[in-house]
């Protein structure tokens, strides 16, 4: 059975988290939250083309994991990738510009939301195909070891994604090759509109790790510090050459699967949504930071304000950016 690590956040050791880490986590989460809520508004206003899978609610996972990584560590992401990109340090300007389909975007406007990447930040891309990023992360970890580097690769995926073949094959491949990969399952309880109980018999996705001979731990995905501790352990382990492991973060998405609000079918009860929202990961961290004395309310507010400005500036940048030139349609189909 997978080890449940979320309890740790209540123990005394937790108090030793440095203010530095708390502030780092907080800033990453606020950036994601504001990036996403503003993107949601733009989508509702009909200003963004394409799909939008918002990450709001899950910020503690991206922040907690990314705070444990170096710039040269690699991540692969999913259709719900903005949070990972923001937390890994991808520029908000390039991200918004991409959502707008501008030539200044992270993909030169060619990829959109589901292909945001930044190789300088180790962000190996969102992905429109469920599970497809898993083996790609395994390949990135392979490359690191091959080159004698000590960077690790982290792959993010949902609860639903653990039912697809690529996840299974990628996990076993990483295990048998002993590669430095951390598998992070963001279990938000749903695959699109299907609850976890409708797509697997297990309660804990982390229990799947045993099928590959790798450890699996469960963490409270609304508790950024808990995620961070679990990630730091897994990353240190992988970096030391002890092979892959899996972290299941129990979390929740506050928006609909795609877009801003549900279309029809109330697949989640109001009570359930309210319960999870009461455990908003940013609120939790802020309350704790203030209670601990790790940060003052004013300091936290300053982060919000600063980030709000940055987001507004990034949106303005995107809107002022030129569109791609249709004459360049064949750009980047091939190298060389």
């Amino acid at each position, binding site marked *: 059975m997978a080890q449940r690590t979320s309890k740790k956040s209540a123990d005394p050791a937790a108090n030793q988290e440095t203010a530095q880490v708390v502030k780092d986590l907080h800033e990453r989460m606020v950036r994601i939250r504001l990036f996403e809520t503003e993107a949601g508004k733009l989508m509702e206003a009909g200003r963004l*083309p*394409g*799909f939008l899978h918002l990450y709001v609610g899950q910020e503690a996972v991206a922040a907690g994991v990314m705070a444990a990584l170096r710039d040269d560590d690699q991540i692969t992401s999913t259709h719900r990738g903005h949070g990972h990109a923001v937390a890994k340090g991808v520029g908000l300007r390039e991200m918004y510009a*991409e959502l707008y*389909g*501008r*030539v200044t975007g992270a*993909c030169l*406007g*060619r*990829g*959109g939301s*589901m*292909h945001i990447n930044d190789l300088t930040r180790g962000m190996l891309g969102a*992905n*429109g*195909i*469920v*599970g497809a990023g898993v083996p790609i992360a395994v390949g990135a970890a392979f490359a690191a070891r091959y080159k004698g580097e000590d960077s690790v690769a982290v792959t993010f995926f949902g609860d*639903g*994604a653990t*039912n*697809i*073949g*690529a996840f299974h094959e990628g996990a076993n491949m990483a295990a048998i090759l002993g590669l430095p990969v951390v598998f992070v399952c963001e279990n938000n309880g749903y*695959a*699109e*509109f*299907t609850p976890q109980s*409708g*797509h*697997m018999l297990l309660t804990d996705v982390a229990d799947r790790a045993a099928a590959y001979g790798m450890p699996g731990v469960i963490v409270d995905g609304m508790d950024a510090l808990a995620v961070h501790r679990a990630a730091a352990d897994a990353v240190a382990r992988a970096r030391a050459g002890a092979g892959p492991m899996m972290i299941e973060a129990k979390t929740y998405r506050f928006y609909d699967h*795609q877009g801003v609000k549900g279309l*029809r*079918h109330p*697949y989640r009860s109001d009570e359930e949504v309210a319960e999870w929202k009461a455990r908003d990961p940013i609120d939790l961290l802020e309350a704790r930071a203030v209670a601990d004395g790790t940060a003052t309310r004013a300091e936290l507010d300053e982060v919000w304000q600063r980030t709000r400005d940055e987001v507004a500036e990034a949106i303005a940048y995107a809107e002022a950016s030129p*569109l*791609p030139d*249709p004459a360049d*349609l*064949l750009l980047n*189909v091939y190298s060389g």
Partner: protein
Amino acid sequence: MTTITEARAAAPDGTARKLSYVKAFNEGLAQAMREDENVFVAGEDVAGYGGVFRMFDNLLDEFGPRRMIDTPISEAALVGLGVGAAARGLRPVVDLMFMDFIGVCLDQIVNQAAKMKYMFGGALSVPLTITTASGAGLGAAAQHSQSLEAWLAHVPGLKVVMPSDAYTAKGLTVSAIRDDNPVVVMLNKVLLGSAGEVPEEIYGIPLGQAHTARQGSDVTVIALGRMVGEALAAADELAVQGVEIEVIDPRTVQPLDTETMFASVRRTNRALVVHEAVTFGGLGAEIAAQIQDAAFDHLDAPVLRIGAPFSPVPFSPVLEKAYVPDRARIAEGCRRLLERS
């Protein structure tokens, strides 16, 4: 084989009922399920949610969870479930949501469903229907916009239909389900909401029979899926200029009714094929290759192909618009064909 035009004619003038493409699909599917107790539907979010494109709306209410099955994200197992159930006498309808996802389950479609009857010496049939949404135009980018009919039409044992409007969305779906072979139904995403006349009763459209959507004497335009509507729009525009184009909708791309095309080209002496898929290696190549052979002595110009350029589908709407063929490019192609002596 006059069922199509008959069904159409049967709708009393003026009072004809209109239905959207996706509702027409849904109605055909529901009627096929009523007709045959062995038909069931499986896929991701097809039951409780009714499908992300609303293709399966209300079917859970009528048919219940025995016949409407939500599955995990496991397309290979999903198609395999369909293959096994079809081999055991059911008539599964399996939904792949976006056609682009076919890469994770092509083995089950191509090496299992399509070949099983042949490899097994004819011991069984695989009456499996696979539904999926294809096509660009919604800013869905490179992994959610493809038209991959050329892959499937190259596979002996499969059939492939590409409804071009509400009427064919219903009739081809019914025929696909009634057919004893694996049939892939490629719905077009952009067309989902477009309305057309649709008879209320259940009707099939014969697989492998092309439809002449408009008659004309100057150029034969063979258009796949959504391009049929674009070709008809181009025809309207050209008619103003005195050019009459004939528009052929193959409806089924495997088997492909080439006789209808040949007969038309032998009259018009000029042919253009248009599809959303990239031109290179697209079905336009097959159609052009067959026409230049069968109508060699009748052609006044080479068969012209219009498709997407050789790149993944771009995200930015400004690029996507330039990428997907449209009425303007079709009209321009016709004019170019007519300029050749």
